[in-house]
């Protein structure tokens, strides 16, 4: 029995890695699937910002980019604001696949979130609000 702290997903996308890389790292394409809008400064230390339009107004989540290995690996860490405690790390890994591209997603660090994470309530709430009716999908053990 273990206490894992990550979310892992693997998907096969029927397009070449370059196409997936563009969807992961270009602002206009990120906005199309990750948020309503996105901005990205694609370099380690650069900022990635997602905005979601809500009936209550726009909601924003920020991250700091940690890894940029074109066509192979892209990672950032959620961080509400500069100077505030970083939160979980999101890493995408791309591999060529016979059908196109194998994309791995790992969001890790849940078990070691500092107590201060509670100050990021709006950030967390943003995640939860995004979910809508899908929230129960994985709730069963």
């Amino acid at each position, binding site marked *: 029995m273990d206490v894992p702290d990550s*979310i892992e997903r693997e*998907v096969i996308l029927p397009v070449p890695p370059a*196409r997936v890389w563009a969807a992961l790292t270009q602002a206009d394409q990120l906005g199309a*699937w990750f948020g309503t809008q996105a901005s990205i400064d694609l370099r380690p230390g650069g900022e990635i910002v997602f905005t979601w339009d809500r009936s209550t107004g726009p909601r924003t989540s920020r991250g700091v980019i940690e890894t940029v290995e074109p066509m192979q690996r892209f990672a950032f860490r959620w961080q509400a604001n500069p100077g505030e405690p970083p939160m979980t790390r999101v890493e995408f890994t791309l591999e060529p696949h016979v059908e196109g591209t194998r994309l791995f997603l790992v969001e890790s660090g849940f078990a070691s979130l500092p107590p201060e994470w509670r100050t990021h309530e709006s950030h967390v709430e943003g995640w939860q609000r995004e979910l809508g009716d899908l929230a129960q*999908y994985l709730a069963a*053990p």
Partner: protein
Amino acid sequence: MNQAVIHEASGAVFAALADPTRRRVLRLVAERGPASATLLEHDLPVTRQAIVKHLVVLNRAGLVSAQRAGQEVRYALVPGSLEEVSDWIAEIGSHWDERLARLRQVVLDQNPAAQDLSITDSGHSRATFWQRPGP
């Protein structure tokens, strides 16, 4: 339930789980049932005093209960105490499912010929924080 209440409770649980030794302590308590610090000492590379400190933190987070039995205190896993955290992580996981489905659509929109190929899930997502013992 009120979101703020969930966050408050989960925050204490996360803080308690932040330490790897403490996670081992919790795992042992879950496996052994009610156990004293002395019993746990046999299976952990730390002192009994350190184990007691970890148990106190776990107790304050509501993860273990403490019951005095004669000279010693026995600790047991509080059933369901990890559910809020595991549910929260599961929710984030389902959020990723939704996002990745949209990503697939975004890449397919620019490559319509590939629409008949499907997305797959590795099926080993670690969405639960804990495999709860029992039925």
